[in-house]
């Protein structure tokens, strides 16, 4: 029923089902999705609009519970564990880039990137700021660290979000069209950054994209249609 488990699979799901909506509007969005992401590789999920790519990403990101099926992170079954455990797992293992920029607008770029580090509490204040500045430099915003979210363009906000997703050195980075509203140059920069981190740090990158260029440069491409991989 499932593919053999790869030795370095860091996140894995099996036979995921998810319905959305109520009563007559109830849609069977995920229809038995199985998938695994390996350390050090960039996985691109492609497919037509509305096929369930974002829904799958929320499942893998433990932001939403599946109606059926199971999810493992780092070998640990987490699909049905308590809210506390799932929350802790998000902080420790996962970094998110949402389809639309989700920046906390009253906070500066630096504060946004430091936000997950503060919760995790692994580093001291100075080390956190140092790391946040480094990450913002990596996405080309080294000179705008103290700008508030409201003072950044859409594309700049999206790059802050990418830096924030990398803050806690997650083992899995889930990115929903991370380059969706970036120009060619920045698109390439963000993708290169993600790909390099995956290789250097052994992180697994799972990204959803409509950009054939990006898909082509990914290590694996998975095609989705009507709630299943084809």
């Amino acid at each position, binding site marked *: 029923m499932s593919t053999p488990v790869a030795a370095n699979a860091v996140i894995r799901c099996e036979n995921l089902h998810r319905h959305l909506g109520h009563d007559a509007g109830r849609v069977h969005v995920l229809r038995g999705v199985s998938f695994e992401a390996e350390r050090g590789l960039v996985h691109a999920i492609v497919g037509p609009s509305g096929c369930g790519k974002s829904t799958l990403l929320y499942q893998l990101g433990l932001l939403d519970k599946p109606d059926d099926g199971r999810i493992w992170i780092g070998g640990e079954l987490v699909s049905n564990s308590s809210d506390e455990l799932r*929350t802790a797992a998000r902080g420790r293992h996962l970094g998110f880039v949402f389809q639309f920029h989700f920046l906390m607008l009253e906070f500066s770029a630096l504060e946004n990137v430091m936000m997950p580090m503060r*919760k995790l509490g692994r580093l001291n204040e100075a080390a956190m700021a140092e790391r946040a500045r480094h990450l913002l430099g990596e996405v080309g915003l080294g000179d705008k660290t103290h700008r508030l979210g409201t003072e950044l363009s859409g594309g700049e906000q999206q790059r802050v979000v990418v830096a924030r997703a990398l803050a806690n050195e997650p083992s899995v980075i889930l990115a929903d069209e991370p380059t969706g509203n970036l120009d060619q140059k920045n698109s390439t920069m963000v993708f290169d950054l993600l790909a390099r981190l995956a290789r250097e740090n052994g992180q697994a990158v799972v990204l959803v994209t409509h950009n054939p260029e990006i898909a082509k440069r990914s290590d694996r491409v998975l095609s989705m249609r009507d709630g299943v991989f084809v």
Partner: protein
Amino acid sequence: MSPNLRIALRFLTARRRAMFMSLIGIMVGVGFFIVTQAQTSGFEDFFIKTILGTNGALKIEDRLQATLFPMEADGADGHSDFLVASDGNKKIIPGVEDPARISEAVRHFKNVSGVSIVLEGTATLATNVSGATAHVQGVNIADHLAVSDLSRQILQGSLADFRIVPTGAVVGSILAARQKLHPGDSFTLEWNGALRRYRVSAIFETGVSDIDRVRIYVHLPEARSLFQKPTGASFLQVNLFDPGRAREDAVRIQEVIGHVVAPWQKREKTWLDVFRALRLSSAITVSTIILISGLAMFNTLAMVVMEKTKDIAILRSMGYARADIARIFIWQGAIVLAAGAMAGCVLGAAATYGVSKLPIRIRGIFSTDSFVVSWSLSHYVAAVLIASVIVMAASLIPARRAARLEPGDVIRGTSQ
């Protein structure tokens, strides 16, 4: 600083104006609470001080005598009402028969600071001009000063004069004014056909008009002659080191000496109840201001929660737990509460000080020419406590709603 507190502070600034209004509401509520309590309890304390200074902490009168008649027999002979009314199966004999002995016994109680033997009677006062009814109290002045504030209640004349003049009298201010009596003037007191002449040594004012209108102090031997009562006393006036213990002491003393002992709380129950009701009703009224600012706080926080659903989802996706989200909103309530309560205490103290300088002339149950306030930490504690309960309850509901948000729902809602 905890990450939650940091986020709370930033969210607060996002709704600066609404938060500021809640803060003002809390400040005004707490301030008003403090100043009204300071006034009502100020007047209450002043009233208590006045009654302790005029009639003492305890009044010992009427001897109790155990009756020998069994209760069953009483029903038959028609005297039952009288006997049942007299404190169960005890009979009451008016007055104190052996005041010297009783006074000595009472002085042995630890909390007793003074005892004064008083012989009281009603006589007719007459001057060259007119006449009036007077309540004459015969006292030993040295003893009486130990159980009253008479020395501080003198308006004209002096107690030194009273001490050395055997026919001297100290006259209540209203009575003196009506009879146009001044220190040095003389008047007569008539009882049962016998007439005696006195001279005004001093005029006193307690502020209690019922007393100032009728009371005259004379020396005890004079009173004995006037009322033709060579022994006995009408009552003993007792002062205590700690008047707060008057009830307990009254019970113990009554048991030992076999006389009815009335503590001031019982004697002045009517007025004390009025003051208590006043204090409570003003506390309730003013608490509604705090309640309204609590509602404002609730409203503001509920608004912030709605505005910040996206931020809440982001925080949850980064590993912030439900409890963290709840804390972020509770912190906001707590910060506004703390600032409002602190400002309210300052406002309350300033207003209390200001009110104490306001002129107001009151005579009747006490005598004052300005507002009386009492400075008590308990008013501040009570105000802050009430504000805390209301504001924290008002913050808890939006905080719980924020904590219950499902990040998946929020993100899907926006990212569709």
